[in-house]
C-alpha cells in the first residue's frame, strides 16, 4: 500500500469544516451560558435552603463537596423530616397561604376559561349588535382590558370591597384575578375557534344538535388543548400575582407571594429559611413548567402567528 494519499481535503474544505465547528461551538456556548443564567438562581435558592450560616458566609456553592447539607431552612418552615410530624405554627401558616394561592389561582383561571371560551366562541361565529357595539368593538372592549394597569383598579376596588365586605376574602381575589386574565383567555380562544372549520358545527346542527349542544359536544373537545393552554397561562399569572393580593388581603386570604414578601425584610442574613420559603413557593410552577411546557408555549404562540 502506497503511503501517498490520493484524495486530499482541499484547504477550502478544511476551512469550511473548521468554520462549521467553531460556529457550533459558539452556538452551544451561548446556549449553555444562557441556560446557566436561567437556572442558576433556581439552583442557588434550592442549595441555599440547605445551608447554615458559615456556608453562606464562605460562599459555598456545591452541596456534599464544599458543604454538608443541613435541614435548617426547611426545619424553620416545619417541613424537614424530623419536624414534619410535629406541630408547627409556621407550617400551618405556610399551608394556609399555599391553599389560598392554589384556590384563588385555580378558581379564577377556571372561571376565566369558562367565560372567555364562551365569549370567544360567540365572537368567532356570530355577529352581534349591542347598541352601537359590533363584533370588532366587542372584541376590542375585551382586549382593551389588557392595557388597563392594575393600579387604576386597585384603590377603587379597595374601597368597593370594603363596602361589600369582600376585603380579605378569597371570592374577592378570585373575581379580580378572573378579570385580569380574561382578555388573555379570550385572545387565545378566539384564535383556537377560528382555526376550527364551521362545517363541523353545521354537520352537527343538521344532525339535530342545538347550538349549545354542538358547542359542548363537538367544538369544545377539539379546542381542549387551547383551553388547557389558556388555563395554564392564567394559572401562572394568577399564582404569581402580588400587587392586588398585597393591597386587598391581610390575614384570612393572604396568598403565598404576600407571605414571601412579608418575610423578606425581617429575615436579614437568615438566608436558609427564606430560601426554603422561596423554593417551596416556586416548586409548583417549576413542576408545571417542566410537565406542561408544550401547552404554555402553545398558549403564548397562538397570538403571535396569524
Amino acid at each position, binding site marked *: 500500500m502506497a503511503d501517498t494519499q490520493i484524495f486530499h481535503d482541499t484547504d477550502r474544505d478544511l476551512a469550511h469544516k473548521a468554520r462549521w465547528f467553531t460556529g457550533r461551538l459558539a*452556538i452551544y456556548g451561548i446556549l449553555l451560558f444562557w441556560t446557566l443564567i436561567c437556572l442558576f438562581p433556581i439552583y442557588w435558592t434550592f442549595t441555599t435552603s440547605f445551608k447554615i450560616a458559615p456556608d453562606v458566609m464562605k460562599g459555598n456553592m456545591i452541596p456534599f463537596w464544599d458543604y454538608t447539607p443541613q435541614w435548617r431552612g426547611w426545619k424553620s418552615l416545619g417541613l424537614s423530616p424530623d419536624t414534619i410530624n410535629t406541630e408547627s405554627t409556621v407550617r400551618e401558616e405556610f399551608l394556609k397561604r399555599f391553599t389560598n394561592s392554589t384556590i384563588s389561582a385555580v378558581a379564577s383561571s377556571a372561571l376565566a376559561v369558562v367565560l372567555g371560551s364562551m*365569549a370567544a366562541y360567540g365572537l368567532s361565529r356570530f355577529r352581534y349588535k349591542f347598541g352601537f357595539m359590533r363584533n370588532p368593538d366587542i372584541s376590542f372592549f375585551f382586549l382593551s382590558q389588557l392595557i388597563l*394597569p392594575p*393600579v387604576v383598579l386597585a384603590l377603587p376596588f379597595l374601597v368597593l370591597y370594603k363596602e361589600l365586605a369582600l376585603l380579605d376574602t378569597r371570592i374577592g381575589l378570585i373575581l379580580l384575578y378572573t378579570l385580569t386574565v380574561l382578555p388573555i383567555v379570550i385572545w387565545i380562544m378566539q384564535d383556537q375557534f377560528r382555526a376550527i372549520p364551521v362545517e363541523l358545527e353545521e354537520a352537527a346542527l343538521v344532525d339535530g344538535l342545538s347550538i349549545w349542544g354542538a358547542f359542548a359536544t363537538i367544538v369544545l373537545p377539539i379546542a381542549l388543548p387551547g383551553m388547557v393552554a389558556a388555563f395554564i397561562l392564567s394559572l*401562572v399569572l394568577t399564582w404569581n400575582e402580588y400587587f392586588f393580593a398585597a393591597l386587598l388581603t391581610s390575614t384570612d386570604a393572604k396568598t403565598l407571594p404576600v407571605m414571601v414578601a412579608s418575610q423578606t425584610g425581617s429575615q436579614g442574613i437568615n438566608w436558609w429559611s427564606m430560601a426554603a420559603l422561596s423554593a417551596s413557593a416556586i416548586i409548583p*410552577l417549576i413542576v408545571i413548567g417542566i410537565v406542561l411546557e408544550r401547552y404554555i*408555549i402553545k398558549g403564548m404562540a397562538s397570538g403571535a402567528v396569524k
Partner: protein
Amino acid sequence: MSTQGDLLHVVTSDEITPARLLLGKLLIWGSAAVLAATFALLFLAQSGAMALTFETWRPALYAYILWAACLCIAQVVRNGEQGKRTLFVLPAVLFVVAMVVFPLIFALGIAFSDWNLASPDGRQFNGLDNIRQMWGDPFYWNALKNMVYYTLAILVEYAIAFGLALILASEIRARKFFRVAFLMPLMLSPVAVSWMVGKSMMEARFGPLARLARWLGWDTPSFFGSPEIARVTIMIMDAWTFIPFMMIMILAGLQAIPREVQEAARVDGASPWRGFWEVTFPLMLPVSITAILIRIIFKLKLADIIINVTSGGPGGATDSVTSFIFREYRDRSNVGYGTLLAIVYLVLIVIAITIFMKAVDRWMNPRY
C-alpha cells in the same frame, strides 16, 4: 372573513308567543326594578333617612347578580334561537362591565376628592386640588420618566430574545431541554425572584453575584447604590423574567416561516447575514410588533420587583408609577390622590399606545 351575516348560519322557526315576550320583558324590568330599589334602599339607609341600617353593601351585589341572571334568561325567552347566541357573550360582558366600567366611574369620583382611609372624616370633594398637587409632585414625574427608561429597555430585551429564538429555531441537539430551561424564569413569581436575585444573589457581602463582581475587579460591588446602577439592575431582573415570553412568541413566528423562503434566498446567493436582514427580519415584523406591544403592556404594570427589592430607592430612582402609588397608599393611605395619579397614568398609557399603534400601522402599510 365577511363582516355581514353569521359565519354559522342557522335558520330556525321560533314561535315566540306574545305571552313569552311579555314574560321576558317582565323578567328584565322586574329584576332591574329590584336592583334599583336595592340601591335606593341602601342609599337611604346610609344617609340615615331610615331606621334600618345595613352592615354592608352586599345586597347591591346580590341584586346585580340577580339582574344579570334574569337578563340572560330573558334573552332566550324573548329572542329564542337568537337569544341563545347572545348567551355566549353576555355573561362575559356583564362580568367585565361590573368589574371594570363600574369601578372606573367610581374611580373618577374618588380621584377628585380628598379621602384618607385612616381619618374619620371620610370622603371630601376637593375639586382640582389633587391635580395641582400632582403637578408639583417631583416624585410622580420622576416615576413617569423611569417608566420611559424601563420601556426603552424592551428594545434590548427584544434583541436578546430574537437572538435566542434564532438559535433555538436552528438545528441544535436537545432543543426541548433548552426550551424548558429558557422558559423557567417566566414561571417564577416576581416576589420570589426579588428575594432570590435581588436580595440574596446581589447581597453586597455574601451574594454570588457580588463575589463574581469582586472577582472581575469591581472592589465594592453595590447593585443598588447609585440611581443609575439601581435602575439598570431592576431592568435586568425584569428582563430576566420576561425575555422567555418574547422569545417564545418570536420562536413561534420563526417556525411559521416556510423553510423554502430561506432556501430561495440562499440559492440567490444571499449570505446568512443578508438572508436574515432582508428576508427573515422583514417577515418577522408583524410578530415582533405584537410581541413588543404585549411586552410594553406588561412592562407598564411593573411593580412587584421594585416594591420588594428597592421600594423605589435610592431616592425614588427606581420607582415605577405603580410602585409609587402603592407606597403613596401604604404610607399615607390617601386613596383620592393615588387614584388620580393612576387615572392620569391610564390616560397617558392610552394616548401613548394609540400613537404607537397608529405609527406602526402607518409604517407597515404606507399610503402614498
